[in-house]
């Protein structure tokens, strides 16, 4: 073979390059066509029936429409997303321990949604809240990432036995 690019070699390379381009274009097009077009949030703003005064400071209120919990931390109303930051399970609040306990992989969070133990990479995410016409309104269009593990601003140890048993 000569090292100059003759007609045969050029065509052979051309075919391969063409096939490569076609495959890349096909892959990119499929990817792009199957990508979902996302709107903002599932329901941008969720109005609750609670006033700032009726949100408890020692328990949580579930707001199913916002997939969130309301509670008061340092006198301020916060909305905590129910979705586990680990792998997306919905985290129930355990009344006996006063903590959130994830049923899927055993992550625990305190009442403020801060990471206590388990595999979750950070605390529970939050939504911003506002007071509109005297009632609490949760803005679900944007989440605020939870605090990194180790954060503990409320210092509330478990009140009693965990719902998942104490041998975790």
């Amino acid at each position, binding site marked *: 073979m000569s090292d100059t690019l003759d007609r045969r070699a050029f065509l052979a390379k051309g075919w391969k390059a063409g096939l490569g381009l076609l495959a890349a274009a096909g892959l990119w097009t499929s*990817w792009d066509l*199957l*990508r*979902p077009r*996302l709107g903002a949030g*599932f329901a941008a703003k969720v109005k609750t029936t609670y006033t700032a005064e009726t949100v408890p400071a020692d328990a949580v209120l579930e707001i*199913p429409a916002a*997939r969130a919990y309301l509670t008061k931390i340092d006198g301020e109303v916060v909305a905590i997303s*129910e979705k586990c930051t*680990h*792998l*997306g*399970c*919905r*985290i*129930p609040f355990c009344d006996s321990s006063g903590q959130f*306990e*994830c*049923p*899927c*992989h*055993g992550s*625990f969070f305190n009442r403020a949604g801060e990471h206590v133990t*388990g*595999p979750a*990479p950070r605390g529970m995410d939050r939504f911003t809240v506002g007071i509109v016409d005297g009632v609490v309104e949760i803005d679900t269009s944007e989440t605020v990432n939870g605090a990194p593990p180790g954060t503990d601003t409320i210092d509330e140890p478990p009140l009693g036995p*965990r*719902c*998942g*048993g*104490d*041998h*975790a």
Partner: protein
Amino acid sequence: MKVADRVKDTTIGRSIFRIPDRVTDRDRAAGHWASFLMHIYPVKVRRIEITFKYSAFLGVASLVLFISLLVSGIYLMFFYVPSPANAYGDIQSIQTDVAFGQYIRNVHRWSAHLMVLAVAAHMARVFYRGAYKSPKEFNWVIGVLLLVVTLLLSFTGYLLPWDQLAFWAVTVGTSMAAYVPIIGEEVQLLLLGGPSVGSATLLRFYVLHVAVLPLALVGLVTIHLWRWRKDSMLSTGGGPATGPAKVQPGLPLQASENGDPVVVEGRRVLGVVPGKPATGDRKELSNDDPVMVWPHLLVRHAVAALAVLFVVLLIGLTFDAPLREIANPTSTPNPEKAPWYFAALQELLAHFHPLVAGVLVPGAIVLGLMALPYMDRNPMFDARFRRVARITFTIFLVLWIVLTLIGFAFRGPSWSWVWPWEEWHGEL
């Protein structure tokens, strides 16, 4: 003359049926080449390959279970609409209104579980036999891909009943994808078709489950079997592997005087090698001596296939496939268990960062298995002479089984430790 023979003897009959009457070995060999389905099989295999202890017929079992899944799955498709409004109700009416619906659903579910088991066991058997070694390295790689596709098929099928079991298992499974570096979140969106598991997810999983993945599986199985057929007479006996220089794929081997395999030179006509068959007049038969596939291997495969079918049909009669409450995005069951073949992963996920447990570990397992035949330089086939490989593989296998058992039977609410008799074990 029997009716069948008279039909075959007409002009039309002769144009359809080209298979000769199997009187001599030559006819039997020709029969393999004349028939589309039969030519999956080689004409001859080594004598040891027809024994139960060689393969436990696990490859046949996997294929039979896949066919059972195809047949039962197609039946179920007639009564199922993949949308959140219909799916759960359709499963309920399959179980109550459709003729044999509950039974067919049971068979589909248990075939799927058994297929995962059969494929995994097949892989372990092939490992201990050293059958992934040259020149079969790439067929092992295809086998690993087949295991992955089998698991993906099981997992995509898991969502379709749209019950609580399905919804949350898929929420967790797709969330794991998000931890893949760089492309993870895009992949998760692509799988879900939206921000969370919803109607788009159900449709996507349905299309993957009934079209994309079965086609991929059939394609891979075709190549897998074709390569098996091409390599069917290569020795994998107790001695060192015969290097590719000595053995040409497709040329059959015969034992020489001192028992070493030698290549029989010669042109092949319809797969028949000229000369006397090695099984002819020798008294002591060696493992590498060829035997005719028709009927020796075929009859064993037929019996194995019937046995597997018998077991799966019996389990289907005895145990009903579970169906929990309809999927409810506002309530995660506690505990929420992954399907059993992912229970080991779920247990790992409870201890390690999801990037490690959900991405790096499974990735390393799949890539490690694929790389195995290229890393293993030991020329021996027999597991007795492969100490390092045998011990390493066995440790990983036992570890995985233990993790699976813990995740399946020893984990309760909030993933706390429970004992199996405390009624928290996972559902199949």
